[in-house]
Structure formats: structure tokens, C-alpha cells
């Protein structure tokens, strides 16, 4: 049953891609609206995963853990924006890179102080712990389907908010021309704070959702950050549509690579990026 195996791998790839999209969309939005390149974005994914770990241990339920974790990441994002990011709006990219690099060092060390260096796992909630039988020998875990559906719902509602609401209109205006939007009366400062907090929360939620299927370990933030950068570069910086296409493409390449060409799997995604850049130096949907 070779094509069933392929189907399962495809589902895995799409699920990984959708998760990547949650992280990359925050990264690309923050850049589009605020012009800020945020290296610490991966740290929020890691923090989300560790919050899920701790809150699940306390309450015994992943769903409660996520409900408790969301306000924590929102407040964290808002605080980081007010204290640090606010100084970066008119600064060079180099300064943004360095300041957020400093933030990573702090977050990583805080993580080690609070949770230690051992890898942890989060149990899958009982309701979703089963698997759907696909054939006599193969089955697919329900939690992964749940994960994909949640990511799709989040992605869809994000598209709805951006396209059809007043806040979304301001976000689009800010991304198109920040100065113009500001002079027409859009309060870019509060808009930036909102966008940044939401982006951080999306990364945090991605971490919480991923916690049961991935290991919760100290370096997980950096690993996902770099892959998210690849996604954003492929899709075009500032483009949500691009982030979606890039994320699913990277998810599939990564999973297929690990199954069919394990020797070069970790290099394959970068190869895809190089190929896209040769063809379009500003990404698939980027403005030149």
C-alpha cells in the first residue's frame, strides 16, 4: 500500500507546514507592519511549548493549559513591544537583529533557570489520543488531524480579519505605506502593539499545540526560527499568502525529504530556498 504511506506522509507534511505558518505569519506581519526583523520570535514558540508543559502538569489538561497560556503570551508580547521593540522602529535592521539576539540569550537562559535542560514531553489529551484506521496496518493519529484543523481555522480567521474588518484594513494600510497610513489618522503605535502581541501569541499557540507531538527541549526556538525565516524568504517578506504557500511547501519538502532521502533532509529545505531565490530574489509573493 505504497500510496497510503504517501498519503500519510503528505498529511504529516501539511500538518507541519500549517504549524510553520502560524509562526511565520507573525514574523512576516511584524516585518510588514513594523519593518522589524524579530529574531526572538522563535523564543515565543519555545515559551509556548514550556507553558503548555507546566500548565498541563498543574491542571492535567492540555486545553486548560492552552487557555491559561494564551493570556500569558499576549501580555508577554505586549510587554516586549512596549519595552524593547518601541526603540527599534526607526533603526537599522542591524540594530534590530542585535537587540532581538540579546533577547534570545536572555529568554534561553531564563528557560534553563526555570525549566532546566532536560527534554520534556506533554501527553496527548485522552479525547484525541486515538487513531483513525486507514488500512489494516496503517492508521493516523487523531491529534495530528485536530492540530491541522485548528491551524486551518486560525489561518482562515486571520485571513477574514485582515480582509474584512476595520483593524484588518488598517493593518493592510500600514503594510502598504506606514507613513501614509499614519498621516491619514491610523494610530500606528497602538496598531503595532496589537500586531506584535498577536504575532507573539500565534507563535506561542503554535508551541502549545506542537508540544504533544514534538519534544519540548531548550533549543526548539532557534530551530523553528530559522525554518520560519526560510518560509518567509520563500513566500516574500510581508506577504501572508506567501507565508502560507512557503510554509506548506517547506513542510512537504521536509517530511518527504526525511522519508525518501534522509541523508540530505536537513539540507533540502535550504536547497528549495536557494532555488526560489535564483528564480525570484524577493520571494514568490514579495514586492521588489
Amino acid at each position, binding site marked *: 500500500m505504497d500510496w497510503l504511506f504517501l498519503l500519510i506522509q503528505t498529511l504529516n507534511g501539511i500538518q507541519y507546514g500549517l504549524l510553520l505558518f502560524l509562526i511565520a505569519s507573525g514574523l512576516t506581519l511584524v516585518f510588514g507592519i513594523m519593518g522589524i526583523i524579530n529574531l526572538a520570535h522563535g523564543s515565543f514558540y519555545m515559551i509556548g511549548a514550556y507553558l503548555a508543559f507546566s500548565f498541563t502538569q498543574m491542571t492535567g489538561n492540555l486545553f486548560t493549559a492552552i487557555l491559561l497560556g494564551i493570556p500569558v503570551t499576549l501580555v508577554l508580547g505586549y510587554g516586549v513591544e512596549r519595552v524593547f521593540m518601541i526603540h527599534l522602529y526607526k533603526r537599522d535592521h542591524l540594530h534590530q537583529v542585535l537587540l532581538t539576539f540579546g533577547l534570545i540569550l536572555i529568554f534561553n537562559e531564563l528557560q534553563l533557570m526555570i525549566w532546566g535542560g532536560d527534554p520534556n514531553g506533554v501527553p496527548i489529551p485522552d479525547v484525541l489520543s486515538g487513531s483513525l484506521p486507514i488500512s489494516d496496518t496503517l492508521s493516523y493519529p487523531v491529534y495530528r488531524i485536530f492540530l491541522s484543523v485548528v491551524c486551518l481555522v486560525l489561518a482562515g480567521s486571520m485571513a477574514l480579519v485582515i480582509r474584512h474588518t476595520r483593524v484588518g484594513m488598517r493593518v493592510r494600510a500600514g503594510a502598504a505605506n506606514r507613513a501614509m497610513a499614519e498621516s491619514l489618522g491610523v494610530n500606528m503605535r497602538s496598531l503595532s502593539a496589537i500586531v506584535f502581541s498577536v504575532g507573539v501569541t500565534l507563535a506561542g499557540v503554535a508551541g502549545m499545540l506542537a508540544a504533544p507531538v514534538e519534544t519540548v527541549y531548550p533549543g526548539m526556538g532557534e530551530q523553528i526560527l530559522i525554518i520560519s525565516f526560510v518560509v518567509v524568504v520563500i513566500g516574500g*517578506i510581508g506577504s501572508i499568502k506567501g507565508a502560507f504557500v512557503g510554509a506548506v511547501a517547506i513542510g512537504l519538502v521536509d517530511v518527504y525529504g526525511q522519508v525518501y532521502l534522509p541523508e540530505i533532509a536537513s539540507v533540502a529545505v535550504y536547497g528549495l530556498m536557494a532555488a526560489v531565490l535564483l528564480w525570484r530574489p524577493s520571494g514568490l509573493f514579495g514586492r521588489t
Partner: protein
Amino acid sequence: MPSRNVLSALAVLVLALAVVPMIGDKYWIKLATRMIVLGIFAMSLDLLVGYTGLVSFGHAAFFGLSGYVLHLVSPEDAAANMAWALPVCLGVTALAALVIGALSVRTKGVYFIMVTLAFAQMLFYFFHDSDLAGGSDGAYIYFKPIFALGSVVLVDLGGSAVLFYFSLVSLIVLYAGLVMVLRAPFGKVIQGIKVNEHRMQALGFNTYLYKLVSFVIAGTIAGYAGFLFASIDGFVSPELLGWQESGIALVMVILGGMGTLFGPVIGAIALLGVEELFRDRALFGFIAAHWQILMGGFVICIVLFFANGLGGLLVKIAGRQSEER
């Protein structure tokens, strides 16, 4: 070319460094060697960041790659001869810089930052995941490189003082070389690209080619630094190519003052000095074990309050003194 006042300040610094092996024990000699070698590394990055306007976040790729090449070409039971080992290391690094540069230099701004980072990570995972050179555990260079003519050993980098002076002389020679490159027409063109690339294009320069050559030069010098760095402890690990190493190099450039060449060297010395302080239990107590927190705060403070760097400060002071005269 820096002013005479700055040059004399630098000469004092070099002399101060040169006496370290005479008064310090092995620990201090190693620390001073690391400062100088990372100074060379940061200086090469300044050619990109401070002069060509290319903010590379993957510069450690070349630093670490060269170290790995040294490991791969070193025999297990004898020292490699620098007469051929060094050209091989630099050749491989230059080739890697040419390939990575040819792709990345096509992009601009944030894309360039992310793309260089991604390529460096690609190399990181290559050495991290493959069995070629010890994987994630790293690998040893059992005998440090020597420079021999026939059977006569002229330089043996296994001696810590020898390695120190060799690095110091390398730093001075490379600095002088880069100053000359920057005064040559080529240097003027890349500095013009930093200020306004479109104007340089309109003047008829193939800016892509100039940026690529600058990228290869910087990568090769980073490879030279990586060769020396691998010789300090005789050990290479994937972390040498990691993005943290690239980030730290950028911090050194900013801390020292970008666009000055000598500034990043001062930045490297200052940053390693600060790290020594932060790790000191007597000064920072239990936080010393978590010194990365202090380092993170330090980096953020530099960006927020001190963006011109120490080199800028030195130029300012020297300028004020020459005005008073």
C-alpha cells in the same frame, strides 16, 4: 586610513597585548589569542557590514568551515604542514563564499540577512548530522599545524606563545592589507555601493560583482581566523558555524564601531573581557552560572545606548585632541 592619534593608540594596544605571554600563564595567553583571532574574524565581517553595506548573519559559516577543513586534512599521528594545509583551508572557504555569495548577494536588506543565516545553518546541520567529522560531538585536531620547510620546523602552532604571536602578526598584516584594499579603487567602489548602489550602477559599475568579491574576501579572512581558532584548542564543533557565533561577531563589530576596521578588534577584546567578568563567581555570584542573561542585557544596552561603538569613541577623542593642538 585612521588618523595618527588613533594609530598611536592602536600601537599601544598591540604592545600591551604583546607582553601578555611574558607575564601571564597559559590561561591568559589562550584568552588573549582568542581575543586576537576573534578580532580578525570580526574585522573581516566589518568589511561587509561597515564598508560594503551587506549585513551578513552567516559569517561564522566560513569561520567554522575552515576549522573543519583543518581537522579533515590533519593526519591523526602527525602535524599538518601549514605550507599546504592553510591554502587548502582558505581555498575551500573561498569556494564556499563564492557559491553562497553568488546566491545571497542577489538579494537585498532583510532578505540578505535571512539568506546568509539560512546558508550558515545549512552548513551547521551538515556537520551536525553527518558522520564526516564527529557529528554533534565535534572533532579533535590532535597535532596543531606546523610550518616546515623540508624537515626543518620553522613555526609550531602547538606552542601557545608561538600561536599567540603568529596570530598577532597575522592581525597586523591583515589589517594593513585591508586598509590598502579600502584605499584602492576597488575599496572606493564598495564604499560607494554602501552609500548608494543605484548611483554606482549608473556610473557603470557592475555592483553585483564588486559585492561578490567583497563577500569572498571577507569569507576567506574569516576562514583564516577559523584556521587559527581551531588551532587554539585543537577542537572543532558545529557551534563554530552556528548562528550564535555569527551573532556574536556582529555584536563585536557594533561594540567596537563598524566601518573602522580596527574597531571590531577592540570590540572582540572588550566582549571577551566582559564575558570573563560575567563568568566570575566572585563578582556575580549565582548569576555567573547563567552569564548569558548578563550578556543578553549587555548586548541590548549596547544597541540602545552605544550604537557608535568604542571605535567611534576613540576616533572622537583623537579628533578632539588634534583640534586642540
